[in-house]
C-alpha cells in the first residue's frame, strides 16, 4: 500500500478568521457617520482634507517601508485609519501641506521608526497633531474660531472650549447641550459629531475591535475630575456634561486612546490608562493654555503604557514534588 502523506502541524487547527485588515475596516465603518456629518457641514473642504490625509498617511507608510526594505503593509488599512483620524480632529480649512507634513511626521516618527504597527509607543495620529500644535507658525491652523469663520453651518461658529477658556462658564449658556450632542458645534471635521462617534465607538466595542475598558474609564475620568472641579467652584469650571460633549473627548475615548500599540493590553492597565487620559484631559482644559487637552493627555498616558501593563497578577509556578516525599509509608497507606 502506498503511504498516505498527511499534513501535520501543531494545534490549533482552525482560526476565528480575524485579520488586521478586518480591524481597520471596522474602524473605517465606525467613523463613517462622523465623516458623513463632516461632509454635510463643511462640504468639499472636508473631503479635500480627509482625502489628502488618508493618501499622505498611506504614502508615507509605503515610502518608508520601501526605503527600509520592509514588506509594504499599507493594505492592512492601519495607515488609512490613522490618516483619517488626523483629518477628523483638524478644521476643514487647514492647508493641505500641513496635513501632509503632519501625516509624514506621524507615520515615520511616531510609528515606523519603532518597528511599525503594534510597536509604536505613541499614536501616529496624535504625533502628527502635536507637531502642528507645537510648530509656532502652524498652531493658528488649530484655532477653530479663525479657521471656520467663512463657513455657514447654521450653528454657533465659536469653539465651545475656546469660549470656556476665554470667558469662563458664564458664557456657556448660549450652547444647548442637546445641540452639542447632535454634533451642532464648531470643532474638528469629525470630532464634533458626538452622537456619530458614540454610535461608532459602541459598534467597535460590539465588534471586538476595541476593548470597553479604555473608553469607559476615559469618560468616567472626565466626568469624575470635571465633577470635582465643578462642585468645588461652579462659577469657575464647566459642568461634567459640557466637558463630555465638547472637543475631542468622544473621539479620544473611542478612537484615539484605544490605538493598539500605544495603549495597555491588560485589564487594570487599561482602567488606569483610561482614567488617567480622562483626568489629564480635564486638568489640561482647566489649567493649561490649550482649550482642549485630549491629545496631550493621551500622549502622556501612552508613555506610561509599559509600566501600566505590569499591573497584573504574577504567575505562580508549581514545581513538581518527588513522589516519595508525598506518599506515606506502606504502614500508613493501608488504612487510608
Amino acid at each position, binding site marked *: 500500500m502506498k*503511504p*498516505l*502523506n*498527511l*499534513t*501535520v*502541524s*501543531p*494545534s*490549533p*487547527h*482552525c*482560526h*476565528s478568521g*480575524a*485579520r*488586521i485588515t*478586518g*480591524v481597520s475596516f471596522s474602524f473605517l465603518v465606525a467613523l463613517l457617520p462622523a465623516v458623513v456629518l463632516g461632509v454635510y457641514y463643511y462640504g468639499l473642504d472636508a473631503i479635500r482634507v480627509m482625502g489628502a490625509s488618508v493618501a499622505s498617511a498611506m504614502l508615507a507608510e509605503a515610502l518608508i517601508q520601501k526605503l527600509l526594505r520592509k514588506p509594504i503593509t499599507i493594505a492592512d488599512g*492601519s495607515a488609512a485609519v490613522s490618516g483619517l483620524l488626523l483629518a477628523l480632529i483638524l478644521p476643514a480649512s487647514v492647508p493641505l501641506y500641513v496635513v501632509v507634513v503632519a501625516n509624514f511626521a506621524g507615520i515615520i516618527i511616531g510609528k515606523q521608526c519603532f*518597528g*511599525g*504597527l*503594534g*510597536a509604536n509607543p505613541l499614536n501616529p495620529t496624535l504625533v502628527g497633531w502635536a507637531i502642528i500644535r507645537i510648530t509656532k507658525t502652524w498652531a493658528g491652523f488649530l484655532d477653530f474660531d479663525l479657521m471656520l469663520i467663512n463657513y455657514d453651518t447654521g450653528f454657533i461658529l465659536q469653539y465651545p472650549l475656546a469660549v470656556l477658556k476665554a470667558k469662563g462658564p458664564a458664557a456657556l449658556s448660549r450652547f444647548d447641550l442637546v445641540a452639542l450632542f447632535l454634533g451642532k458645534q464648531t470643532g474638528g471635521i469629525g470630532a464634533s459629531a458626538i452622537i456619530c462617534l458614540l454610535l461608532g465607538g459602541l459598534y467597535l466595542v460590539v465588534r*471586538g475591535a476595541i*476593548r470597553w475598558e479604555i473608553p469607559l474609564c476615559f469618560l468616567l475620568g472626565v466626568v469624575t475630575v470635571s465633577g470635582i472641579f465643578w462642585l468645588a467652584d461652579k462659577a469657575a469650571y464647566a459642568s461634567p456634561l459640557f466637558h463630555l460633549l465638547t472637543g475631542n473627548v468622544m473621539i479620544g475615548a473611542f478612537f484615539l486612546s484605544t490605538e*493598539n*500599540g500605544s495603549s*495597555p*493590553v*491588560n*485589564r487594570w492597565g487599561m482602567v488606569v490608562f483610561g482614567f488617567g487620559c480622562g483626568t489629564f484631559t480635564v486638568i489640561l482644559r482647566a489649567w493649561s493654555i490649550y482649550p482642549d487637552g485630549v491629545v496631550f493627555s493621551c500622549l502622556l498616558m501612552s508613555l506610561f503604557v509599559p509600566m501600566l*501593563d505590569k499591573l*497584573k*497578577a*504574577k*504567575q*505562580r*509556578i*508549581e*514545581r*513538581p*514534588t*518527588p*513522589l*516519595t*516525599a*508525598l*506518599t*506515606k509509608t*506502606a504502614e500508613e*497507606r*493501608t488504612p*487510608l
Partner: protein
Amino acid sequence: MDIDAHVESLDMPENLILLWSERARTDLASKVGDRVITGQDLARNGRGPFISTATGQIRAIDDFRGPDGHDYLAVAIKAKSQDSFDPTLKAIEDIASAAPLELRWAINRAGFNTLSSISSDPTLWPPVDVVILSALDLDPVSIANQQAFREHGDQVESACQLLLRSTGGSRCLLAVPQNLSHVAHNISGRTATVVLVPAVYPNGLPEILARKYGAGLLMRGSNEGVVGNTLVVPIEHALAMVECLHSGKPLVEKTITFSSGQNGKPKNFRVRIGTPLAEVLHKAGTEPQPRDKLILNGIMNGYTCFSDEQPITSTTDSVHLQRWSEVFAFQNAACTNCGKCNAVCPVELEVNLLGRFSEYGIFEKCLALGAENCVECGLCAFVCPARRPLVQFIVHAKHAIKAETFRAVSMKEVMDSDTQGPIPPAIKLFDTSPEEDPSKE
C-alpha cells in the same frame, strides 16, 4: 447545542495496534508470535499493566513516535473476532467495603491510565484533595462524556464513591455541562457536589476545570515528581471503571466522534481500543486524500496524525478529518499589540509578551512570565488578527525552559557529588552572567 446521541458499533478489526507510552521493548513480557487473550497483562512484572484489548497473536512490536510528540512502544495484534477474557481479572462485588488499595490495584489492572499516569505503582499514588468527575467533553464536537453521563446517570453515585475511596480524596465534584442539568437533577446520592459548567471551550479541559472549580491545580505526574491537588477524571472513564470492577473485565472499548469538513454531520462510534483510524474512516464512508489533516481530540488543542494507521487509544475522544482546502496556515507577522490573546487566555498569561520573547529566544523572560502554566488551549492563536503562531511560540519556550531546568538540575547534581571542589554557587536558570576564567586566578 443538541448532540446526536446515536452510537454505531464497529466490528473487531483484523489488526489492532496497542500503544504504551514511554516504554521500551524490555518492559514487555510477551514477544512476537505469542498468543494473547483479552485483558492479559503484556508487561513484565512490576512495569505496570499494559492490557491486551483483544484475543489473538502478536504480529509485530516496534518503537513509535506518537503524533503528540511522545515515544511509544507499539504492539500489533492479529485479532480474532471472539474474545476470551483473562481469568486472573477478578470482579469486586461490593466497592464500598473493598480496601482502597485493592480498588487501586483493580483499576490499574483493568487498564485505566487516568490515575496510573501519575505512577504505575498504585501504592505510590499521592494524596488527592479534590476529585472532579467531568461530564464535559474536551472538544465541542465530541460527545463521549455527555453520552456516558446521560446513559448511565444511575451509576454516577458508585463512580464517585469508587474514586473517593480509591484515591483518598476529601471531596468529589461532578462537573456537568449546563445543557445536561436535568440529568444531574435525577442523580440519587450525595457523594458528589454538582457544579454546572457552561459547555463552552475551553471549560472541558482538565486544567481549566481544576483551576476554576477544583482546588486549583491539576494533578500531573512526570519523572521528576507530582504537581497538583485536583484529579480530573472523564466520566466515561469513571463509569467504565465501575462496570469493569463489577464485571471483572478489562477496558477494551471507547466511544469516539468522527467529524469531517466544516459542515459535516458528526458520527459516533463505539470502537475497540487499538483500532486503526483507517477502519473508522472506512466505516464513516470517507477516505483521507493526500495533504489532508487527521486530527485527534479536537481542532483546538488536538494533534495531527502522521498516518491513518494511528490507533484509537483509551484517551481518544474525537477524530476530525480536515481537508487540505480547510487547512489554516499561520503567518510570520509582527504582533500588533491588540491584546486579544491576553483577554481570552484562561490562565491569564501575558501572551503578547510571551510570543515576542519566545520569537527572539529570550526564554528567561518567558520563564518569569509563567510560560509553563500555559495549557495550550489554542484560544490565543485562534483570535489573533495578525495570525501569529502563538501556541507554537509558547510551546517552544516551554521546551527551552524544560531543557534548561534539566541542564541546571543535572549540573547541580554533578557539583554536589564533587565533594573535593569548592561549594557550588546556587544554580540559576538561564544564568547569563559571564563565566569566570580560571586561568586568571
